[in-house]
């Protein structure tokens, strides 16, 4: 595979690629409250970009600024080379799918989907044809005469999607697109969304609080907290190389150990941890001096748990006692007490059926936890 083809998939790696959407030090204040705090963001054409964060982190405000419902207090938003600060929502080349779907209750499916085209003064015949195509795409052709209240949740969601896509926007904004659906439908719809995005090549910006959803859907994720951008990266980067303890804790679970760098090599570091007593040998280099205070993040599924009593706690190995077991069917979660008060969470696949109903590892059992050099990550903040 040539490097060029590689960049095609991941334009953010290409230094020459021009971002499609540029958010430049944008802030938004509501009175004394700062909802968005000097955010810089580049989104490339064809991306499925997720803004991820808890409630009140500013992700929705940022989305509403992209749509034009809020104006930035400072900074600028540039879409396809045009500064959008003074462009009202009805003139922006973007469309939005609302969390509530915001389907017009007094119009039927057809009128809802065709609304945007009618506002552009497009000829009737063309509107009809495009509405027809759109409804076929979301498989709602037979429901065209129904009113929104006669549709199920999933159908409403697809009408909202069709309505937002019919104007062929340069960018589609989706505010919690799956939040109103029940869990089974959500998973199915996720893949439908990805398929549609792939087919149309429209840039999607999705706001969500659901990290699984963000991981499944997106090419890249921006994690936000209290109005600030914490990290931007592909789902793998965000999960495997979180930039801070906050991101590590927000995306999935992480066991956090506090320690000091005692050896800093070119291809490895060793971190010494006092409570619990344990050394971490980690196979990536660091550009900080020896002796600095750091944290080591270790994901629960990256830890091996075994009954073989290891001699002593040492490098990439620690002794403990099982405090709690959560049996989840496919996996089990063990909460292991190491040292005096430190709890380490371990997730382990249940490869075999337990014999005679006895779990392979029991409560209050002494266990040994081990991991590889490539399993943990050093965090400096």
């Amino acid at each position: 595979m040539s490097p060029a083809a590689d960049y095609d998939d991941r334009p953010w790696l290409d230094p020459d690629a021009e971002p499609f959407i540029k958010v430049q030090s944008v802030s938004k204040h509501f009175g004394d409250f700062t909802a968005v705090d000097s955010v810089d963001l580049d989104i490339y054409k064809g991306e499925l970009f997720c803004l991820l964060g808890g409630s009140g982190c500013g992700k929705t405000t940022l989305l509403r600024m992209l749509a034009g419902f809020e104006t930035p207090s400072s900074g600028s938003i540039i879409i396809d080379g045009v500064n959008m600060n003074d462009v009202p929502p009805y003139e922006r080349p973007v469309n939005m799918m609302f969390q509530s779907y915001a389907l017009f209750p007094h119009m039927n499916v057809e009128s809802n989907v065709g609304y945007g085209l009618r506002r552009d003064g497009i000829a009737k015949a063309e509107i009809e044809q495009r509405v027809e195509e759109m409804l076929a795409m979301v498989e709602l052709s037979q429901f065209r005469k129904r009113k929104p209240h006669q549709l199920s949740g999933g159908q409403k969601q697809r009408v909202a999607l069709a309505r937002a896509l019919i104007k062929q926007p340069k960018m589609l904004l989706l505010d919690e697109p799956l939040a109103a659906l029940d869990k089974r439908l959500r998973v199915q719809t996720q893949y439908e969304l990805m398929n549609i995005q792939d087919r149309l090549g429209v840039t999607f910006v999705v706001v969500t609080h659901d990290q699984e959803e963000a991981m499944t859907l997106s090419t890249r994720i921006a994690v936000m907290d209290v109005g600030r951008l914490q990290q931007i990266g592909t789902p793998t980067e965000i999960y495997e190389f979180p930039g801070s303890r906050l991101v590590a804790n927000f995306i999935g679970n992480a066991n956090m150990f506090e320690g000091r760098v005692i050896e800093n090599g070119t291809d490895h570091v060793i971190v010494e941890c006092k409570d619990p007593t344990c050394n971490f040998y980690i196979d990536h280099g660091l550009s900080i001096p020896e002796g600095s205070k750091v944290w080591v993040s270790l994901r629960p599924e990256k830890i091996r748990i075994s009954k073989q009593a290891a001699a002593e706690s040492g490098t990439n190995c620690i002794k403990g006692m099982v405090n709690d077991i959560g049996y989840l069917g496919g996996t089990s979660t063990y909460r292991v007490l190491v040292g005096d008060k430190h709890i380490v969470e371990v997730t382990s696949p249940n490869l075999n059926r337990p014999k005679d109903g006895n779990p392979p590892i029991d409560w209050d059992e002494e266990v040994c936890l081990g991991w590889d050099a490539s399993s943990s990550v050093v965090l400096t903040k």
Partner: protein
Amino acid sequence: MGCFQFGGFDEMSESAERSLQGRLLHRLGYLLQRNWRSLVLFIPFFWLLLFFLAPFFIVLKISLAEAVIASPPFTPMIDWVDEGIMHIRVVIDNYAYLWEDDLYAKTYLNSLKIASISTILCLLVGYPMAYAIVRAKHTTKHVLLMLVILPFWTSFLLRVYAWMGLLADQGTINNLLIAIGVIDEPLRMLYTPFAVYVGIVYTYVPFMILPLYANMEKLDWTLLEAAADLGAKPMTTFFTVTLPMTFPGIIAGSLLVFIPATGEYVIPDLLGGGNVLMIGRILYNEFNANIDWPVASAVAIALLLLLVLPMMLYQHIQMKQNEAE
């Protein structure tokens, strides 16, 4: 293109160039579209300024004039005494008159007393009813609510009239009581303060029930269960949980009864006879019978001052409620 829609004025530019009329129409449409917001605001604003705010200043002005036998029966405030020397004549005699004649003071106090007692009575009747409606099952709730609202839509005057028939010396109640032998002679009820209380409670109790209902409807009733679960007896639960939670509804309902009851005219006139003095009646009589407009205006201003505090309180509550929503 080619499909003309209301509001899409730029699309009609081509045809508009043809005639003056078309151009004017286009211009008008353009103006409407550009300035419709100001228009939306201006029309009701102007209406209220002219027909609501301005009249108060006129009342204020006339209350500061002297009564004369003329048309209109009061002296002008501003006289033009030769060559444009303006002479402003302000007479506070009317207010002094209100102050000196203790008929007015008594009437004010009496109005406040009647309004307050009626408010409490309405609360005593309305609170359990609102509570019962909220706690009723779905269908019953709607039926009860409709039964409470229905009198709103019928004539206020006729509902007061109905009590004239009930309370008269030879009215239904007296006839009934005499027939079953409880009393020998008719009780005097009509044209007494009692009749006024009955009339006010009767006509205003829906104004108490509806805000209370609206307030209770939003309450989290599991709080009562929580209180009971934590060992509170029903009475304790009522005083420590229900009553404080429904307080905003109580205040809103009480003000909705108290304010109009203070200025009530019809009920004291029809049910109270000459015995019950209330400020609304004095104002009406001063104006229509005595034709003393300045004094009537002064009475109106004084009544307004009396009610300005509860009215502002009511507005404040409404605003807070709107914000909460």
